[in-house]
């Protein structure tokens, strides 16, 4: 199985663990990743907030590249990139005028039929059974709070989650690794997203509520599937701890890092050492699985 891969801007910078861990996990699963050649930014929040044309054309450029590269399925591990790519394609599919304007700009025809998937969808497709085959560590003592944030569930017709208010697709993947999931209230609450830089206080306030509920429900770690969620819950946790000294830090893992740990991959290779909140304390909860000979 070969998958088209759209890394997204954060993959080279603040979200590099997402990129590293994804590549490691897919190596073990023997799934090839065809990185999109010469990909560019999807526009993220800034494009759709300031210009409709930018918000459709910037992702469309990448869809066109994928088309030309002969890819028919594209994985976007960042929830925002996924949302922008799907929205752009959908708009071009539903509105003739928009599509024609973009085709005029890019000087080519868009086929608007690309299959775009996010991390949750791709692991759902791979299936829990295939994952279990590669699990070598025992995670049964690890309690994970699965955090979806906004864009993995909303808008409902773009994100296509199993349930808009109480999704379970990430829990299914996490449980396939052997870890336990907790039932908590803030799994789809907003962390503050792109306000991280211009309105840091809002992000601190919202992210604190999310962390508080996860801790209250007994989680050891929070799992995320998006570099923005990760940044706000991990990087900004330092500011949260500053405001509320004496609170216990709670590490935030990418879903792919969690899967990688379960597969026995070296934590350093997964990028775990680059987090702001130290992940090492929970590593002790992960033990080697006893191999039972047939």
């Amino acid at each position: 199985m070969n998958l088209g891969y759209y890394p997204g801007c954060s993959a080279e910078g603040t979200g590099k663990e997402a990129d590293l861990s994804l590549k490691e996990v897919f190596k073990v699963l023997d799934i090839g990743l065809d990185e999109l050649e010469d990909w560019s930014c999807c526009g993220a929040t800034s494009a759709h907030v300031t210009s409709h044309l930018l918000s459709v054309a910037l992702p469309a450029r990448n869809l066109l590249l994928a088309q030309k590269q002969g890819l028919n399925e594209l994985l976007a591990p960042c929830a925002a990139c996924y949302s922008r790519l799907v929205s752009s394609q959908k708009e071009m599919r539903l509105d003739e005028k928009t599509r024609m304007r973009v085709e005029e700009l890019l000087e080519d025809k868009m086929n608007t039929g690309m299959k775009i998937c996010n991390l949750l969808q791709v692991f759902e497709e791979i299936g829990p059974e295939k994952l279990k085959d590669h699990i070598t560590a025992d995670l049964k003592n690890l309690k994970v709070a699965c955090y979806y944030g906004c864009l993995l569930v909303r808008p409902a017709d773009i994100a296509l989650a199993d349930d808009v208010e109480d999704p379970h697709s990430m829990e299914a993947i996490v449980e396939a690794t052997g870890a336990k999931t907790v039932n908590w209230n803030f799994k789809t609450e907003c962390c503050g997203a792109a306000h991280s830089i211009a309105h840091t206080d809002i992000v601190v306030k919202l992210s604190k509520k999310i962390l508080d509920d996860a801790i209250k429900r007994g989680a050891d770690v929070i799992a995320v599937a998006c570099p923005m969620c990760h940044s706000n819950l991990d990087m900004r946790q330092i500011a949260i701890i500053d405001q509320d000294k004496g609170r216990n830090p709670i590490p935030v893992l990418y879903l792919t890092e969690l899967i990688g740990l379960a597969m026995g991959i070296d934590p350093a290779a997964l990028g775990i050492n680059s987090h702001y909140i130290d992940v090492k304390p929970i590593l002790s909860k992960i033990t080697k699985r006893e191999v039972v000979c047939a």
Partner: protein
Amino acid sequence: MDALRELAIEYGIKPPDPDGMAFHRSFLNQIKNFGRSYEIGFLLEYKLKTRHFFQDLDLAPVTLIKGKLGLLPPKVKGKKSIRKIFAEAEGGKA
């Protein structure tokens, strides 16, 4: 909601909170120039616009050590088409 924001920009309304707009302009300028986001370029432009020079400086050393900040700008070959998209968006009706 986005429609209201775009109209406000078109009408040249001054936002009561300029930091948000500064963020978006700085971010988009990196894409216009480099094709992908260039964090150092973004930070320089944002700080110059907002004068929040000391914001998040405490995080800088840690970030650099962890290798999370790309020092060199990204290299995208298809910059022409990206510049064309921006020209159309900024010149004609957004």
